[in-house]
C-alpha cells in the first residue's frame, strides 16, 4: 500500500504493508534514522515519536494508523524541544546517545503537557524510556532546567 506520512511537516510517500510498524516506515522507507529501534515491543522508548501531540512508541503502532496525522520525530523542531536541546547540551547528558532521541521526545511531551513537572511527574513520564548507559540523573536535571528556561521565556 502507498501511504503519505506527514513527518515534521513534510510529506513522505512510503510503500508498506498496513501492519508495518511506523518505526520501520520512518527509518527504512522514509529514511529518517533518528528514531531508534531498541526492543520492538514497547518496552524501551527508543522509538518514541509524537503523533498529533500524543506520545507513541512507534515500534508498536501501525503505519496505516498514522495517516492524516502529524508525526513529530527527533529530526523536527519545536519551542519545547529547543529548550530541552539547550539543557541537554548544557548538562552534557548523553553518553552513547542512542536512547536520547526517545528521551527528548518523551520529555517534549512532558513539558508540553505539564507546566511545572515534579520529580514524580518525571518518574511517571520518563520511566518508559530505558537508558542502558544510565544518564537518568542528568536527564532529570536537564528537564528541570528546561522548565525553568521555558517559564522564563514566557
Amino acid at each position, binding site marked *: 500500500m502507498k501511504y503519505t506520512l506527514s513527518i515534521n511537516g513534510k510529506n513522505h510517500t512510503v510503500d508498506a*504493508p498496513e501492519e*508495518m*510498524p511506523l*518505526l*520501520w516506515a520512518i*527509518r*527504512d*522507507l522514509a*529514511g*529518517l*534514522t*533518528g*528514531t*531508534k*529501534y*531498541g*526492543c*520492538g*515491543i514497547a*518496552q*524501551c522508548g*527508543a522509538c518514541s515519536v509524537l503523533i498529533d501531540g500524543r506520545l507513541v512508541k512507534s515500534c508498536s503502532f501501525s503505519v496505516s494508523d498514522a495517516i492524516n496525522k502529524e508525526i513529530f*520525530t*527527533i*529530526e523536527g523542531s519545536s519551542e519545547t524541544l529547543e529548550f*530541552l*536541546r539547550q539543557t*541537554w*547540551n548544557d548538562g*552534557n547528558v*548523553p*553518553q*552513547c*546517545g*542512542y*536512547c*536520547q*532521541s526517545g528521551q*527528548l521526545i518523551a520529555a517534549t511531551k512532558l513539558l508540553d503537557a505539564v507546566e511545572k513537572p515534579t520529580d514524580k511527574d*518525571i*518518574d*511517571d513520564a*520518563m*520511566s*518508559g*524510556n*530505558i*537508558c*542502558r*548507559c*544510565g*544518564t*537518568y*540523573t*542528568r*536527564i*532529570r536535571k536537564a528537564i528541570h532546567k528546561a522548565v525553568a528556561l521555558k517559564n522564563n521565556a514566557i
Partner: protein
Amino acid sequence: MSSKNTVSRRNFVKIFGLASSGLILGCNFSGKTPKIVRIDDGISFAPNLFVQLKKDGKLILISSRSEMGQGVKTSLASAIADEMEADWNFVSVQHATGNAAFGNQNTDGSRSVRTILTPMRKMGAMAKMMLISAAAKKWNVAEKECVAENHYIINTKTKEKIFFGDLVEEAKKVSIPSDKNIQLKDKKDFKYIGKNLKSVDLHDFTHGTAIYGIDARLPNMKFAAIARCPSPFGTVTSFDKTEALKITGVIDVVALDRVKRAFGMLGGVAVIATNTWAAFQGKNNLEITWNLGDNGNYDSKKYKQLITDRVHKKGKIVPGGKGNINKAFKNADKTVEATYYVPHLVHAPMEVPNALAWVHDGKCEVWTSTQTPQRAREEAANYLGIDKENVTINVTLLGGGFGRKAKPDYVVEAVALSKKMNAPVQVVWSREDEMQHAYYHTVSAQYIKGSLDDKGKVTGWLHRTAFPSITSTFKPLSDYGAGFEFAQGFNNHPFQIPNIHLENAKAEAYVRIGWLRSVAHIYHSFGINSFVDELAAKANKDPLLFNLELIGNNRIRQGRSKYPLNTKRLKNVLNIAVKMADWGKKLPDGHGIGLTVHYSFYSYVASVVEVSVINDKVKVHNIYTAIDCGLVLNKDNVINQMEGAALFGMSLTFYGEITAKNGAIVQSNFHDYQMTRMKDAPTIEVTVVDSDEPATGVGEPGVPPIAPAICNAIFNATGKRIRELPLKNIGLV
C-alpha cells in the same frame, strides 16, 4: 618513533576510508613501536595519521578507539588539541578505520586513555612544533620567538600572528621532529586536558543525526535477519521457507553455516528483505527443525547446584596464597563461612548488534558499530579468503557496547550474506537475538571462609571460585578459570591477611562466554566485599574501620605491574566516599547504609549506598562514589561514567539474570530482562580525586563496588544477608 615515511594520497584515503583535503599528522603504531607516517594529500598539513589541518583552519582529529558512550573520542582528541594549542571550535573527530597503522584499536579493558594518552599528546605536540617552524620561516625569525596559542602562531617580539590554516602550505615542507625533541606541556598549562569538555557528538545526539551502525545506508542495500539455533552451536536439520517468502518485502531465504572461530558466526537461516521489518517477519515465519547439539541439555538451575557443590569441595590451587590456612582456622577465635552466586548476564546495549557489508570486486567494505575494527577486519578477510588490505571497516558510533561489540560475529554474517546476495546487506539482530545468542557474562559460585582472632582481626581467608572461563570461547573444553580472570579481584585483593588460600573449581561452559563491563570483577567484588562486611559484623566492628584495618598500612604492592596497587590511594577514596555520605549519620527508619571499596583496571573506586527496605521493597536513595583514576582527561566525563556505572550496577543487582532451559536462553527482551529506569534512579554524587599519577580506566571500575555496597546496605537496614543476585529472585524488588 623510529622510522619515517610518507604515504601517498591514495594510500591515505585507503587508510582513512574518507576523502580528505587539508595537513595530516600521522603516526604508525604497527606493532608496539609507533612509527611516524606523514601523509601528503596535496591539500592538508598532515604530519601523522591523527591530525589533519585544512586551509580554512578546520582540524580533523582521528580517534583510534571506538566511541560507545565512554567519551573516548572527545578525550583522545582533546589531548591532541591541547598539545597542539588548537581552538576546540575548529575540531571535529572521526573514527579511524580498522587498520594496523593506528596501533591496537581494541576498545575494551578500560585501557584506551591509559595506553595511548602520551602518544596522542605527542601527535599534537609534533604538529604544533611544525607549525611554529613554518611560521618562524615565514617571518624569518628564530623558532623560540614563536608560540602557539588558540589556533594561531604568535611572534612574541612583534605580536604579529598567523592563523593555523594559513600555515598549511609552509608546514607541509617542515621535516618531522624526532621523538626525543617532542616536548609535552606541563600539567598547569593544560587547556582541555582535565577540563569539562563536552562530547563532540552532542549536537548530533540531540538532533537525531548521529550515525550508528544501524543507521548506515547504501543504495540498493538489503536487510537481513537470521534465525539461529536456540542452543549454541546447534545446527539446522531442515527448514521450510514457504511462509517466510509470503511476507511482502522478503527477497530470499538462505542457510548459513557456522564458522568455527571464537568470533565466527553461529550460522542458521537468514531472511533477506527490502526492509528490516520484513526481514524480522520473515524470520518469525520460518519453520526450522534444529539439532540442538552438545549444549542442548544446559539447564542453568541444575548448573547452579553443580558449581555450588563444587566450591564446597577442594579445588585446584590458585597462586596468590600464603601462610597456613588450616592453622589459622584452628587457632581462630571465630570463623565465618558464606557462599555467593551471580548468574549469567547479558550486555543489552541499546543498539543491537548490526553490520552493513558490501563485498564486490574482490573487496569488502563494512560499516558497523564495533569495539574492535581490526578483529572485524581479520574475521571478514578470513571468511572471504582475501587479504586484509582489501577489507575496510568503517567504524560508526556505537549505541553502547559493554563488551558485546568487541566480538564481530555479526560482521561475518553480513559479509557472508553480501557475498551470497551480491549486494550490500545489513544484518540487524532483533533484541531477542541479542539476548538469546550473546557471549554471556559468566555464571559463578564462590565459597569464602574467614577467621578472626580475639581482637577481631582477620587471620585467615579461604576463597574458592567456580565460573565457566572466557577462555572456553577461544579454546573449547577449557574448564578452569584463567589467570587474567583470577587477577580481576580474586587473587590480588589488597587485604593484609597473614594466611590466604585460593582455589578454583571446575566449571564447563554451555554457552559462549564473553566479557561484559568490568568482567570478573563483578562476581569477585560481590563475593569478597559482601564477605568483608560479614566479617565486620562478626567482629562487631564498624564496616568503615574494618575495611581500613583490613587494607592495612600504606604500601605499594610490588609486582610486574606498571601501575602497582597503592593502598594509600585505596583508603583515600574510601575516606572521601564516607565523608560525602556522612557515614555514621542517623538514618530514617527502614534505611540502611553500606560501603565497598574496590580496585580494578588500575583505578580506585569506593561507593557508599543508602537504601530503604520497606514492605520488602528495596529502594536505593543515594549513591556516593569517589574515584582515583590518576590524571583526569575530562572530569565531567569521569563523573558521567561513574553515574552510568552506578545504574549499570543497579540493573545487575536488582534484575540481571540470564537463565537457560534445554539449552535455550529463557529471557528474550526488556520485559523479562529488566533495566533500572528513571523511577528507580537514585541521586548520585561523585568525587574525582585530583591526581598526577598515570591515567587509568574509567569505563568499567565504577561497576564492581555497586552490588556489594547495595547488599551491605540492605543488611544494615534489615539484618538480612544477600548472597545471591539478583534481588528480584528473593522478593526484594
